[in-house]
């Protein structure tokens, strides 16, 4: 008896809704990277001397480093001299940006993606920073946020307007020496989002950044820094898409979160970069370093990610639980189909006493997708009574895909408690038959079963985004039972 319906192979082709290209004049640097390019990027942003020096130090260190090759990925060589490191849509003038001055092509692009930048049309309660190729093109609801004392702006602006905060925090969670891609990012990052929540403030709305790669042969290197001061709260969301192109494009972002005493940061990602076509041509190489530092006692950082795009994903959003009683959480749904590969997971570094961490990872593999969970739980010597619970579930669809789990557990304190649970399952023919016998078609049945599998993660997302994520998952897995 065949275990799965066989019509499915034919259904595997699917559309990528965000694959269009915006025709807009861009100011793009020629491909290649050297010290001059780093200086030009810095000069284009009119950066102060200290920032230029930071970049150059990172660049010089990067030259001494090698690309990591330990991940469970089949990675073609990346030609770092073949990439342009800066691309910005041309602006009519250099005046202060307001929504009226944004090129209508850009507004249209974001409208098509379902992210209206006009405040009156925006989703209620969500402020957006829109990053197009290398620069931030718009940030909404700034006034309302400023009234609450919240700083929400592009990284370029923060360098000029809040240099003391940037100098105090930038690179303190992910130093440029951390890894190859973090060093590259520190040298050439062009923009990103900066958030500061003052002490005791509960950010009045959801903050979000929407990243869009448009220009061909460019890399996107954004840098995000979120600081939640004592007793504050912020929830932040990130979305990403890119046009369909035959060549691979590099995305190497760095995200740093700092939570001081009693502060909470919730960071959610819905990643839908172009995954490449069925033969594995094109798609984004997504090499991202995300780390949160629970610096203060009772601080809390939670990462939630829904990863459906990219040809290759290499990403481990992590928490350093430094403060006593700090808590870290990682909820992840990663989907690979076609020829997609993902090596993703988290690191929970327990340093403070009574620190707690929770990891829930759901990997879904379809087609010829390869999905790897890689997670480190480290209980340092001082981590008295620290606790971790890890749950790692894989769902396989078809017989050509793979799921791999690499848990690393290091315990240096005898009072620490670490639990790891892992399951691997297939959507069974019994489950499909049951749903279909009740009248659901195969697509609806798969969607229902997969969404059930991901429920624990989706419930961590803000409502609107949970709905988005479910829809995205349905599109991504259309006809993926094989």
């Amino acid at each position, binding site marked *: *008896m065949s275990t799965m319906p066989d019509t499915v192979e034919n259904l595997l082709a699917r559309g990528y809704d965000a694959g269009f290209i915006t025709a807009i004049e861009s100011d793009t640097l020629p491909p290649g990277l050297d010290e001059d390019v780093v200086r030009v990027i810095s000069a284009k942003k009119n950066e102060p001397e200290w920032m230029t020096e930071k970049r150059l130090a990172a660049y010089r260190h990067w030259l001494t480093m090698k690309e990591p090759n330990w991940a469970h990925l089949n990675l073609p060589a990346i030609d770092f001299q073949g990439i342009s490191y800066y691309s910005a849509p041309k602006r009519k003038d250099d005046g202060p940006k307001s929504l009226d001055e944004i090129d209508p092509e850009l507004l249209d692009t974001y409208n098509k993606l379902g992210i209206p930048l006009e405040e009156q049309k925006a989703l209620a309660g969500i402020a957006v920073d829109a990053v197009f190729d290398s620069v931030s093109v718009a940030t909404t609801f700034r006034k309302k946020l400023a009234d609450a004392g919240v700083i929400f702006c592009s990284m370029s602006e923060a360098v000029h307007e809040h240099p003391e905060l940037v100098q105090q925090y930038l690179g303190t969670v992910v130093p440029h020496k951390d890894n190859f891609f973090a060093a590259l990012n520190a040298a050439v990052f062009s923009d990103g989002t900066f958030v500061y929540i003052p002490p005791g403030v509960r950010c009045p709305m959801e903050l979000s950044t929407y990243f869009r790669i448009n220009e061909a042969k460019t890399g996107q290197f954004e840098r995000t820094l979120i600081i939640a001061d004592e007793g504050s709260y912020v929830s932040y969301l990130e979305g990403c898409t890119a046009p369909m192109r035959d060549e691979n494009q590099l995305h190497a972002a760095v995200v740093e979160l700092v939570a001081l005493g009693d502060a909470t940061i919730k960071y959610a990602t819905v990643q839908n970069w172009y995954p490449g076509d069925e033969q594995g041509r094109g798609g984004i190489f997504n090499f991202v370093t995300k780390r949160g530092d629970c610096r203060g006692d009772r601080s809390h950082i939670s990462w939630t990610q829904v990863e459906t795009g990219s040809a290759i994903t290499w990403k481990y959003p992590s928490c350093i639980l430094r403060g006593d009683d700090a808590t870290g959480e990682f909820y992840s749904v990663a989907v690979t189909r076609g020829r997609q590969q993902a090596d993703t997971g988290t690191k929970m570094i327990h340093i403070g006493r009574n620190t707690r961490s929770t990891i829930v990872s759901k990997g879904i593999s379809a087609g010829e997708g390869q999905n790897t969970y890689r997670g480190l739980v480290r209980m340092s010597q001082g981590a008295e009574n620290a606790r971790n619970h890890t749950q790692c579930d894989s769902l396989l669809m078809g017989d050509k895909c793979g799921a791999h789990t690499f848990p690393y557990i290091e315990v240096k304190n005898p009072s620490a408690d670490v639990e790891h649970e892992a399951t691997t399952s297939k959507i069974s*023919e019994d489950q499909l*038959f*049951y*749903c279909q016998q*009740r*009248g*659901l078609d195969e697509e*609806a049945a798969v969607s229902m079963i997969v969404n059930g599998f991901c429920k624990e993660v989706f419930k961590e997302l803000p409502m609107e985004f949970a709905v988005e994520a479910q829809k995205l998952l349905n599109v991504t897995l259309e006809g993926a039972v094989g």
Partner: protein
Amino acid sequence: MLTIRNLHATVDDKPILNGLDLNVNAGEVHAIMGPNGSGKSTLAHILAGREGYRVTEGEISFKNQNLLDFSIEQRAHQGIFLAMQYPVELPGVNNMTFLREALNSVRRANGESELDAVAFMKRIREKAKLVELPEKLLKRDVNSGFSGGEKKRNEILQMALLEPALAVLDETDSGLDIDALRVIANGVNALRSPERAMIIVTHYQRLLDYIEPDYVHVLVNGRIVRSGDKSLAYELEEKGYNWILEEDAA
């Protein structure tokens, strides 16, 4: 409503049904009994259209159409319902969401409007009362952590909700204690109607004490070898299947 003629079917190339004939009219309840391996469950799954069961000869007409032309879900839309012997668990899928999606799929396929959340709630509460399914089970994941009896009751609840033209109950009585059996039987009896036909596949006569069939058929080696009324079930209970096997061989 349902006419089966000379049905031959194989599973993994092994012949299971060998020339089965059956005629079921609206309003009738037919019990199909027979020893292990006689093909009872195969018949149930073939009616539902499950993959892996291959019809090699013969025909099945349902509501004057060739049933074998239709997919699993199309048959469900036309009113075929199979209460499973082993209902599967769907982790993370809320029972209520599942039931609503199922009902609305059937309604959509028949050109009826979908039920909104409020109308659905009202209906499902009524039906849950009918099969004595505690409302809290509606909020749990489909069949997840349900006891055997709860799973079977959930099947009957789905049947009550979907109001099928032809309900096939595949060994619904297996693994049930006498109280659970009575509850299930009450639910089934409440669903008997002149428009609805039922095929009850069972091993034992016990279920038939509670659900009184109009016809009893004995399935042996993939064929119906004897048909009769309720008294045939008692005769089987008393004498076992061997005498029929012997007479059939003779």
